[in-house]
């Protein structure tokens, strides 16, 4: 987990994104229990207060909830997870569109390149099988 943080963004936000990604992708199962702040801070090698701030943010988003006595859990609200998954996808697509525009590609050119890349990837996957 060392040095995976980008320098231009607060660490806690990068932790939030990391958890969000793992929740919506199903790597972290809905309803499962999270480790303690301390354990998470150690495994990410970050300050416990920074980890605390990230978890508070996830709680505000509803992706994580805290049970006072038992600890923190990933939400079991499947609808919310699906919605969040779409939101993450939208964000990635938005970045793609923005970057293609800044390179001067038209919508059609961008779509063509996108499809070509997909085909290449598919055939690449076929070959590696």
């Amino acid at each position: 987990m060392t040095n995976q943080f980008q320098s231009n963004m607060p660490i806690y936000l990068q932790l939030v994104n990391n958890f969000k990604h793992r929740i919506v992708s199903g790597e972290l199962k809905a309803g499962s229990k999270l480790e303690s702040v301390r354990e998470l801070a150690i495994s990410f090698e970050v300050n416990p207060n920074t980890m605390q701030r990230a978890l508070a943010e996830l709680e505000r988003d509803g992706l994580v909830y805290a049970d006072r006595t038992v600890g923190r859990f990933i939400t079991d609200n499947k609808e919310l997870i699906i919605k969040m998954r779409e939101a993450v996808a939208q964000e990635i697509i938005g970045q793609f569109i923005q970057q293609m525009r800044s390179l001067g590609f038209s919508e059609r050119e961008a779509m063509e390149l996108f499809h070509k890349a997909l085909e290449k990837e598919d055939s690449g996957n076929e070959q590696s099988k």
Partner: protein
Amino acid sequence: MSNQNSIQDMNKTNELVRITNLTKKYKNKAALSNINLILEPGHIVGLLGPNGSGKTTLIKILAGALNDFDGAVTVNGKSVGPESKALVSYLPDSAYFSPWMCPLDMIALFKDFYSDFDEHKCLEMLRRLGLNEKQRIKTMSKGMIEKFQLCLVMSRNAMLYILDEPIGGVDPAARDFILDTILTNYNEDATIFLSTHLISDVERIFDTVIFLREGEIVLQGNIDNIRAEEGKSIDQLFREVFKC
């Protein structure tokens, strides 16, 4: 958190260190000028500054190792001195071991000196770091000595840990291990005050940083707030602020 705990929290002064108008001169040169600083419990604070900015002087004063200064410095309400030293676990910037000693000798000394020293914890940490408790200091590498020193210091159950350049002499792999040791072994109500110039390696374990320049505090704040405001890491900001 239980009710009892929250009442205790309210009673806590929430002020572990208070430094008021601290000035320290060597001959006519000011090493520290009019420093004012408050540290609360439960934080890992990075003290950052170029060589000669006063980091070690500030640390020595806080640790009670230097006592001719102007101003007031208290730890948990007590002026720095024998009483505050009992609350402070201090890692100096150079090792003070006698070369004939082995870790077991030092552990016996620490047990005598500090009532809050946890021998069991220290031995466990030594083993985890791959050190032999019977190896003589003079046969140890610089990195091994640094690791051993850190084990001793982190094995005390102190309110304030003051670490002067704890990772200067070890390779990057051992650095991660040392950071891990610091994170694993400090009690969450304690505060760690750590100086370093290897900022990019350690900034993630800080929540607060202090920039020291020519004996004055030029920046102090929460690292993520600084990163958000500046759009850059503490390491990058440091390179800009202290550009030669």
